[in-house]
């Protein structure tokens, strides 16, 4: 029985760790606790989407801002879970950034929209016809008095005056029939209509905080939702009472329903809609509002856009309602998710997005493995020819080293990225370096006429210092790279670092043990190196 050696033990551990973590790749039917530790592929290899979001906390206090980011992460996570993505990753980066990774997602537009979407649901009463008219007149008057605040309207006004008075010097004094704002709209069947080519301008105005001040207290203007068919038609503009009768917080549950094809309501027939259920208090409020405002219209407003404004025919109890509005199925699904998960606490903005198609990922894996295999074969052949038996040992250990990198990546739950594969391939080239250093040194010692055993001893002794020095600096570079990089670049740094550590262990401990145990046994006179 040989005496216990630390070196032997470390090699056994090295091999066991490698085997343990690589087994799931080779044998698919391992027990669950074992098989779950499987090497994960990065987004760039599987395809998918990554979004870096920044939370705008400028309007929150410091204390709220801190909570807001975490709260947002929670909401985004819920939304993504309901959307159905396998293994999403949502991380906080720094103070107010959120990194969302969605592997395997192909419907990236919907995913991005879902994450960003806010849904401010409000129920508001539509103003009576005469009130609306007064509101419009007041807006016109307010704007005429402060025309300088609305450069676009001022420009329009000037143009109108010129048309009325060809003599430009008198243009300013020409009296126009109505204010400039109401020239953009006209009374329609119900409420007002905006001509298609003015929609953009009115949209901008509605979002303008100065314009909001020009609207009389207690009222607000909102446009109707457009769908694919009505996007290029005239749009309805509705005057609402700004008092919120019910809001999203009164909501208990939202779900998508599909109208039957026999339905008499054209907004529902054969179309998806969202049915909502209110909380107890919400249901009471709803009952009161509908009871008090019979024969008026109640608008369902989402993010400032009127989705529908049905007439209240009856007092509605039970707290159920429908949001219709010519949704597409996916729109309706996403909206229901957003309504269920609640609103983001602070607005978020994507500051960088990457989308990698699944095809490119598969191609990358394939070409990466081809390159790796070719590189490996070239290096292995070279070592074999140049160092013969010793080279063979180094090759044998090199294969373990590559396995070790993959195993440690698995153990840390790290992902394998394309730059990571590049890192492994380069490591194959560099890993033999430690062996080369040592073998060259041993050869020199042999040239001096030493026996194989003492040549290996002194060769190792001298070369190991160099191996440490040389590899530690590469390790420094890898550490800096890790600090600097994100995502794939980190993957590269990690594989490089593991490769360095692994190759040092392989050369200094593993190869030497094999050499000393099997090759230079007894008093052999020659060493195949």
């Amino acid at each position, binding site marked *: 029985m040989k005496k216990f050696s630390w070196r032997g033990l470390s090699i056994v551990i090295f091999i066991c760790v490698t085997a343990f973590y690589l087994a799931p790749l080779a044998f698919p039917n391992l027990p669950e606790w074992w098989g779950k530790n499987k090497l994960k592929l990065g987004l760039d290899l599987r395809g998918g989407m990554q979004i870096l979001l920044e939370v705008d906390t400028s309007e929150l206090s410091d204390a709220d801002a801190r909570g807001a980011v975490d709260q947002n992460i929670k909401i985004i996570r819920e939304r993504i879970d309901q959307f159905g993505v396998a293994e999403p990753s949502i991380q906080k980066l720094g103070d107010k950034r959120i990194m969302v990774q969605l592997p395997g997602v192909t419907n990236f537009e919907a995913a991005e929209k879902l994450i960003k979407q806010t849904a401010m649901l409000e129920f508001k009463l539509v103003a009576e016809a005469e009130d609306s008219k007064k509101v419009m007149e007041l807006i016109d008057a307010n704007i005429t008095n402060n025309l300088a605040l609305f450069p676009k309207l001022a420009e329009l006004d000037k143009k109108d005056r010129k048309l009325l008075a060809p003599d430009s010097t008198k243009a300013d004094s020409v009296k126009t029939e109505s204010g400039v704002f109401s020239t953009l709209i006209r009374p329609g069947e119900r409420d007002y209509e905006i001509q298609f080519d003015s929609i953009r301008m009115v949209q901008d105005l509605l979002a303008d905080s100065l314009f909001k001040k020009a609207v009389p207290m207690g009222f607000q203007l909102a446009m109707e939702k457009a769908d694919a068919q009505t996007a290029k038609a005239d749009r309805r503009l509705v005057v609402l009472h700004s008092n919120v009768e019910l809001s999203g917080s009164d909501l208990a549950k939202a779900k998508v329903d599909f109208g039957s094809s026999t339905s008499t309501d054209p907004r529902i027939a054969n179309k998806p809609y969202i049915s909502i259920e209110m909380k107890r208090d919400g249901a009471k409020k709803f009952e009161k509002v509908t009871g008090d405002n019979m024969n008026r219209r109640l608008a369902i407003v989402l993010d400032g856009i009127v989705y529908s404004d049905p007439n209240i025919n009856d007092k509605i109890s039970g707290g159920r309602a429908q949001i219709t509005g010519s949704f597409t199925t996916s729109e309706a699904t996403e909206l229901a998710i957003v309504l269920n998960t609640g609103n983001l606490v602070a607005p978020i903005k994507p500051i960088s997005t990457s989308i990698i198609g699944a095809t490119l990922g598969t191609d990358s894996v394939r070409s990466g493995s081809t390159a790796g295999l070719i590189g490996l074969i070239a290096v292995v052949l070279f070592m074999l020819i140049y160092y013969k038996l010793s080279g063979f040992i180094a090759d044998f250990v090199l294969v373990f080293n590559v396995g070790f990198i993959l195993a440690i990546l698995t153990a840390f739950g790290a992902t394998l990225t394309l730059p990571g594969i590049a890192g492994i391939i380069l490591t*194959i080239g560099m890993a033999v370096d430690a062996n080369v250093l040592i073998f060259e040194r041993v050869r020199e010692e042999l040239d001096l006429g030493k026996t194989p055993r003492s040549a290996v001893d002194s060769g190792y002794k001298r070369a190991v210092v*160099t191996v440490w020095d040389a590899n530690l600096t590469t390790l420094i*570079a890898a550490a800096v790279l890790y600090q600097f990089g994100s995502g794939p670049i980190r993957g590269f740094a990690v594989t490089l670092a593991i490769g360095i550590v692994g190759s040092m262990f392989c050369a200094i401990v593993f190869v030497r043990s094999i050499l000393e145990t099997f090759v230079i046994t007894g008093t052999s006179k020659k060493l195949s190196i």
Partner: protein
Amino acid sequence: MRLMQNTNIPFVGIRYWAYALSAILILAGVVGILVNGLTWSIDFTSGVAATVNLKAVDAKVAPLKIDELRTVLKSNGFPEAEIQRVGDFDKANFMIKIKSKSSTSDVSSETKGKILDIIQANFPEYVAGKDISRDVIAEIYEVGPKVGGELRAAAGLAVLVSLLLMIIYIWFRFELTFGLMAILALFHDVFIIVGIFSITGKEITVQIIAALLTIVGYSINDTIVIFDRIREDLKTYRKDPVAEVFNRAINRTMSRTLITAGTTLFTALALFFFGGSVLHDFAFAMCLGIFFGTYSSIFVASNLVIDLSQATHKEKSTIQHLTKRK
């Protein structure tokens, strides 16, 4: 089999030729950077880069010409779009890049959607029968100006920090002159590669920065192996002139230097030829880096140590410092 056994090439003797060659290479790089500037990828400038596959499913449709794509994008509000082919001609992969014009103007997050809409509307025959997100989009990157600017600063800082840490390491393990000259050699490597990228008009991407840092690590590795041997030999051959000791050390580590350069170059070349389009430039930088890194380790770094220690008359103290320690 043995390479480079018992060579005695006068590396130290021909060092001025090597300096001249390096100076020419660096100068060419400087001129290249001054004339062409550096092309930063959208990772750094911000903007949108989209690679789309426009190979028609119907074999009868003639392959899309790059000019057609350019004209259509130009007339649809993207006159600044740069378009290039990626990979093989047959594969019909096009990369469309739209860089933000200034650091403040934002490429809106709708840009990528708009580009896809334009392509679908104008080239229906090339997307027919394909799933847009699965078959047409190869990759899309969209980078906001904030991220781009930060990344550029971070990349520069990363390269500088790694160089600084290495000076400190070598200073600690060897001696300051060695540390400084090793870093000078590294600057030399990085500079030449960046120069070549500038002259060839290749983009500096995040991956290229990663390659540069790896090269820094690789080149210093080579240099240290030689330094180590110099240190050892200075102790062994105390009576020999310094230049001779240096030359002998370089020669005796030659075989190792070349073998490691060779095996690493094998793998980098394998990446270059077989690693696919995404890693192509990265592998290109690595190949250059291994080549120039090896060159500078042999011809530049240790020779500079000789010259600097002679110039500063610190030769004796340098050697004493090195040989005194164990």
